[in-house]
């Protein structure tokens, strides 16, 4: 790497790091969300196709040049979708996901929010969304633009929600779509695959959702609280990235950990 500009610059502010968070997953994200003050603590700034992008440990991507916040795979109303099939998952996943989204919006105050598909877990999700949650989204969207990219779970767009639906968005030198395309990698921000990475150091291994980017394309981690992850070594990810420059930006307890693909397994 000598002689080249460092790819990575950390924006971690050590003194401001929250110390109360002892747990990962939803609760940790909720606690961090509660402490949000507008300072992007523990986030990681990178370049995607020449555009600056901030990976936030809450799972959102902020693009400062266009003041755009990107989130992907919210899978809202997943609990209800399962309940319709006889599995009574807790009916609290939507409010939990929206609380975190609210916090990340408060942190960056974006002009535009792009939700990158699989916004709802199934087609009837947005139609049956309870009124209080509908209002919550309306409040969040007030004073800013909102674009719902259609996903494979919700190809028909949303019902009675602010913002517009679209299959794709081209904006600020980047392309936003739900499923990564196999042809045009340059400047593509996509979701769908729920990337996660496993880090192994001496017999110990830890797995986390991550942003995955080789500098040309970026895959978003899934944002919904009931969404799982797919390892970036999985076959479904093959051919999407240049492995030599691929870096996984893992969502840590209170910051992003960036690890080069080749050194994930130690």
């Amino acid at each position: 790497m000598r002689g080249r500009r460092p790819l990575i610059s950390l924006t971690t502010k050590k003194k401001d790091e929250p110390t109360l968070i002892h747990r990962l997953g939803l609760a940790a994200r909720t606690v961090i969300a509660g402490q949000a003050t507008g300072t992007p603590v523990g986030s990681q700034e990178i370049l995607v196709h020449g555009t600056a992008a901030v990976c936030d440990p809450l799972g959102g991507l902020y693009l400062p040049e266009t003041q755009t916040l990107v989130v992907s795979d919210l899978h809202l109303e997943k609990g209800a979708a399962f309940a319709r099939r006889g599995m009574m998952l807790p009916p609290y996943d939507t409010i939990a996901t929206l609380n975190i989204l609210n916090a990340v919006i408060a942190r960056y105050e974006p002009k535009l929010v792009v939700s990158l598909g699989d916004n709802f877990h199934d087609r009837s999700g947005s139609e049956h969304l309870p009124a209080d949650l509908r209002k919550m989204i309306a409040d969040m969207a007030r004073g800013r633009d909102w674009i719902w990219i259609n996903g494979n779970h919700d190809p028909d767009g949303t019902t009675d929600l602010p913002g517009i639906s679209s299959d794709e968005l081209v904006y600020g030198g980047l392309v936003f779509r739900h499923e990564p395309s196999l042809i045009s990698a340059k400047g593509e921000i996509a979701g769908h695959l729920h990337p996660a990475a496993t880090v192994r150091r001496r017999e110990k291994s830890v797995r986390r959702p991550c942003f995955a980017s080789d500098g040309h394309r970026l895959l978003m981690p899934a944002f919904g609280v009931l969404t799982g992850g797919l390892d970036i070594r999985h076959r479904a990810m093959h051919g999407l990235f240049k492995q030599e420059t691929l870096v996984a930006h893992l969502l840590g307890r209170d910051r992003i950990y960036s690890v080069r693909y080749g050194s994930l397994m130690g």
Partner: protein
Amino acid sequence: MRVDLVETKPSGNQAATLPTPFLKWFGEKGWQPRAHQLELLGRAQAGENMLLIAPTGAGKTLAGFLPSLTDLVARGKIPPGSAFTGIHTLYISPLKALTVDIERNLMKPVTEMGLAVTVENRTGDTPQSKRQRQKLTPPDILLTTPEQVALLLANKEAARFFKDLKYVVLDELHSLVTSKRGHLLSLGLARLRKHAPKMQTMGLSATVADPMDLQRWLAPQGTLQAPPAGLVHVTGGAAPDITILGTETRIPWSGHVSTYAIPEVYEEIKRHKTTLIFVNTRFQAELLFQSLWTINEDNLPIALHHGSLDASQRRKVEAAMADNRLRAVVATSTLDMGIDWGDVDLVVHVGAPKGASRLAQRIGRANHRMDEPSKAILVPANRFEVMECQAALDANYLGAQDTAPVGEGALDVLAQHVLGMACAEPFDPVELYDEITSASPYAGLSWEMFERIVDFVATGGYALRSYERYAKIRKQEDGRWRVSNPQIAQQYRMNLGTIVEAAELNVRLVKRNAKGTLGRGGMSLGKVEEYFLEQLVQGDTFLFAGKVLRFEGIRENECLVSNAFSLDPKIPAYAGGKFPLTTYLADQVRAMLADPDRRVSLPDQVRDWLSIQLERSMLPKQDELLIETFPRGKRFFLIAYCFEGRLAHQTLGMLLTRRLERLSARPLGFVATDYSLAIWGLEDIGAMIADGSLNLSDLFDEDMLGDDLEAWLDESYMLKRTFRNCAVISGLIERRHPGKEKTGRQVTVSTDLVYDVLRSHEPDHILLEATRRDAASGLLDIGRLGDMLKRIRGHIIHRPLDRVSPLAVPIMLEIGKEPVPGEAQDAVLQEAADELIAEAMG
């Protein structure tokens, strides 16, 4: 003291006489019906539910079936064209293989006596056509498993099928009752009694600590209460010949694998016809098997048997065993029970048996003739285990038992059962409540809790009542509950059962061809946990199915491996199958430490070790808790010798580190074994105790089981594991969904994520309560920890030392071998991220 065969003398009026064909048959064989067989028959004929406790080889199975067979002979053949007759006798065993074995053993006397009795088995392997036929024309005796009973009971035809039921024979009852399978079965029995009120139970069991537990289990409780089942207890048999392996080699300080003793074990195999080698975990089994083969110069047929191996591989080993083609089998608890294994003349137990009753069971596997002594050798893996083996051996001669109590019925199982009952026919809640509380594990169930379970089954039982329109069961106008649609019943049938397996992938052995690409096909070796495989990269080697394998990758839902030629495999860190030390043995080991007379019987090496301990520090009295503190390197250590088993120690370790953190002792970590707990930190804990800034009685106060426990539970990954089981068993999450049977991942949503959501939004939800109850007795062993904290109050002895004591060496050697707990995970990430920064900045 166990002496010669002693049988309870039947009192004259209870002993039955056998019908002629039976007497003739016994006579032709040159046999005598045994006293306990006649007593059981007589009391059964008088209408009692019965429990028969007898050692292996006492003719237990035949005894259990005599009441049925004699009754069926009296009934005679059913003339063709008669009205539908349901089954007469249900035989329930925990093992599929056992039902097949019993069918063979039972058919022999039935055919030889020419009895007009039909016998069939029904398990998960029985073809659909045969099952259908069994429903139309049931056999007289049906041999089956608890899961099949639940399935039959959830059927609309259940009442008709079971209306003529007279006897239920329950085999290996001791192993069934303490598990969730036992809970489900107890509810099934309650329902069977509704269909056939005069039905009688015949329990067959190995020796247990509290027979009355089982006697109550076999009889209805609550409003339908009947007297506990009658007991016939056959004691004795020849006293087993047990020794602890004597060795010239140094016994290791720590570890679990006894590799030091392999040559001696091999010599014993050579000296005997067939040796059964028991270990406690699959990991030990793999390692021991491999070590034996590296010195197997005579090429003796030695096999491996554990639960993760492919079923066809296991069947092969079992068949070879039955034909006496093997000289030794290395096995885990999969061979603890039942089936007849040919001529085993030696049992070797590698590692301490962890429980006195478990040892007795396993020794009973050698030599199925009751009047000849079984021969067994114990091979302790480390010095503490020497004491534990000695304690288990003493217990065996005393006939002491330490089986677990039956315990309270699990709520997740109850939820599954309630749905099953709605699938059978609409239920009246009050009637069902009475029926359920007649099962002894659920005798204490409150009406309020029952209602919450019904609500949970219907809509998930959430405070936010948003799923009413998706309800699985609904209340009709007549007050009865019915399933909402037929698909619910189908889903129930597909997901029934209480055994939840970790997500596992099939392991397939493939070959590399000349070009180095992987072939397709190849032998299936068994299943390995997904979390373990995820840590592997191509080229990593591990030990499985007795082979060193090279990890090649994951294709679809299979893990592909090739033969490796490395001798230094990375070994599977199997989580399952580790038993914690029982309270009884722990007590005995403490007594041994405290009593110089009892230490005399220990090997020299162990005695020397203890006498140096006595010089350098001390040996605690039986009711005392010894705490040692000493510095080592840049750390300060606290060792607590609790002897309460690994699970309770782990929980204690988590709670103590929290407390020490608050007291600014800056703890860094802890490690737990069956015998002790070690905590280390940056502050001099010994000095803190000396200057009064840390008070040991306060540190070990029972109040840690209050808030500290609550706070820790939030974070515990063990609780998440327990939750996963509850979520699956209770039907919150399905293992299989209609039309999606073949997709590999069994659970469709991460239960860890569901747990987090539920925990933060409805912490008193019934499923979390069920999880906490399970954890208290299971993985966290909170009950046992609580008892210990009570016991040691006012009996804590502190020894400040300037260096590590002999007794502390075993646990100090364990440090660093434990996996990362949740808290330390970010440290691993940090390390990886730092490398990147160094690279980028360098």
